[in-house]
């Protein structure tokens, strides 16, 4: 089982990602435990998925052009929302994270997945992500090293999910120069 970073520690990933083929082949024989479901599949198999909630929690996977604001009303069904970064240079997911946290009020686990590495962790955390499935399934020792990057910077100028008050609303009291 691959490891991830969640809540500032290295931990096992308990979520199983399901695809349409799995659901169609054996609707009654879904994997046990927590399921991560792509948005399109959720929209298609919503009733079926809600019916098995006793067997495990539901997670939503947002990819590519998926718009988080379009499923605002459904968010209460998910214990996890995972945002896929198809390429490290595709920064749409940072906006998705902030929208989920700041505008849609999502409080569950928010995971960054796809082409992300340790050098993206600090900014992702500021945008509201609290778990990270790093590209290439790094060994636990590497993940432990990567944890340091959550603290690459001691502060930030902007209003962020992690610290809604921008630096300029805090630093004014910090010095009198």
């Amino acid at each position, binding site marked *: 089982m691959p490891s991830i970073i969640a809540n500032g520690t290295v931990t096992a990933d308990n979520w199983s990602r399901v695809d349409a083929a799995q659901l169609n082949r054996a609707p009654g024989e879904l994997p046990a435990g927590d399921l991560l479901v792509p948005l399109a599949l959720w929209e298609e198999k919503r009733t079926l998925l809600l019916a098995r909630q006793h067997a495990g929690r539901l997670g939503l996977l947002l990819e590519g052009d998926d718009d988080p604001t379009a499923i605002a009303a459904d968010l209460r069904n998910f214990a996890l929302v995972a945002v896929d970064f198809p390429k490290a240079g595709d920064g749409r997911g940072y906006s998705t994270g902030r929208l989920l946290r700041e505008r849609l009020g999502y409080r569950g686990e928010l995971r960054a997945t796809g082409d992300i590495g340790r050098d993206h962790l600090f*900014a992702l955390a500021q945008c509201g992500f609290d778990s990270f499935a790093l590209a290439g399934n790094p060994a636990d020792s590497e993940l432990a090293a990567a944890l340091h990057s959550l603290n690459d*910077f001691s502060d930030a100028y902007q209003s*962020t999910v992690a610290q809604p008050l921008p630096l300029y609303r805090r630093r004014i009291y910090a010095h009198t120069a």
Partner: protein
Amino acid sequence: MRHRQPDLAAVYIYDHIDQNLVDERVTQFRDQTRRFLAGKLTEDEFKPLRLRNGLYIQRYAPMLRVAIPYGMLSSAQLRMLAHIARRYDKGYGHFSTRQNLQFNWPKLEQVPEILAQLATVQMHAIQTSGNCVRNITTDHFAGVAPDEIVSPLVWSEIVRQWSTFHPEFNYLPRKFKIAVNGSVEDRAATLVHDIGIHALRADDGSVGFRILAGGGLGRTPIIGHVIREFLPWQHLLTYLEAVLRIYNRYGRRDNIYKARIKILVKELTPEVFRQQVEAEWAQVKDGPATLTEAEVARVESRFTRPAYATLPRDDAGHDLALASVPGFANWAKRNVRAHRVAGYAAVTLSLKKTGVPPGDATAEQMDAVADLADRYSFGELRVSHEQNLVFADVRRSDLLSLWQQLRKLGFATPNIGLLTNIISCPGGDFCSLANAKSIPVAEAIQRRFDDLDYLHDIGELDLNISGCMNACGHHHVGHIGILGVDKNGAEWYQIEIGGRQGEHAALGRVIGPSFAQTEVPDVIEKLIDVYLAHRDSEAERFVDTVARIGIEPFKERVYAQHHRQWHGHGGQLVAG
């Protein structure tokens, strides 16, 4: 309400938080470089990380672009740049059209150390490249220009801090450039930026901003559109956040050539884009990122203030020198500008001496300029987007003495605003993107127009050269713009006329098929001949004549005699 005109401001001084962030960036990049050299980061993984620190891998060596926020430099900072040029480079640097400084020969493994040294003088290379918000640029006469309405410096610094490491906008579809102007005349080229900000005042005296979006040069030059006529100052950052979020979410990522915000604005139409921004802004307006009076005052208080003396407006010695010292009046006319404080003037140091690549300065020159800045201009200077240096606060009574010093350095060429004040990118001699060389073309033109009387007779003329369509030399807004193009592996030059920067910014029009490098000075001379023959008075500038008579008379003259030769080259018309 921000009714008060802020004190004249100059260089922003870091507090301990600003300093920590820059130091932490050095540590972060040192570790990233170490991991890359140890094989733990691939070339593809390392590339966006190094670009974010201004480090390109160029034709012959890495190129490091150091940020000079809105062009403001202290003499201590300039001495550090000189030191780095000497110690880690080949003894010189190149001032760019984005008010930055580029080193062309640093070694990758030494870059973390260079950044550490820069941090000791509150400098860095943060976001000087990559698909993020780049260095904020502004008017090089900010704070001293008589036509200034609001000083753009404080607002530029506020935007700089907001854009530095902005976590949401680190990986935009493409690079993003913001320019701030606060005067009647637009000396910051705000119409050709991704976002242009015009500081202005409402009827009640309160400060606000006109916001433009979607301008840009490059291969699809577009003049920006006004998306908000007046934005009260408190909302500057929330509004920028709304613009950037719309761009980050909906800007094209499928084609690098269509990824700038100008394409999004164009494809949506400016009006629909504006509506989307307003809808997004409605959600974040009055949120925690709203600016406060206290914050603006705090940023203002971190700026140095020139300690101006009370001086008479005119200086008899200066007037006498103008009349009696050969060459001085010429220089004063071209390179000296009025100042809002009596007895002071702003002086432009020309980095456009014939035979020197435009914008280049040696370490020795930098040190000497730093000394002169200490002696004549409160230890501060600016870099202009025309690739010159500016001493903004010189006593009029010191002008003669300063001119004599600058002549020894080769920085007193009296050509500001004239044809030989060529704006040029580094071109194919250095840049791996370039199709063609820029610097030899600039030099050949400067040599052709070396006669000062002739040059002054031609009058104001902006000549810009870009070595490729990325348009780093801003050729689209040159009165004469030259673009290097590749034709079957050979270097050719396409010529545009009629472009202009400023509040009536316009894009030049291509006059026809391109030319070989050796032909370019002849073509420029023919264009000038047509202008001199047609201008209605000496007051009518080249660009005004082009606007009045159109480009046809110029085309006729250039291609009439060129025709035969042109067919000999295959007669292709190179698309722009």
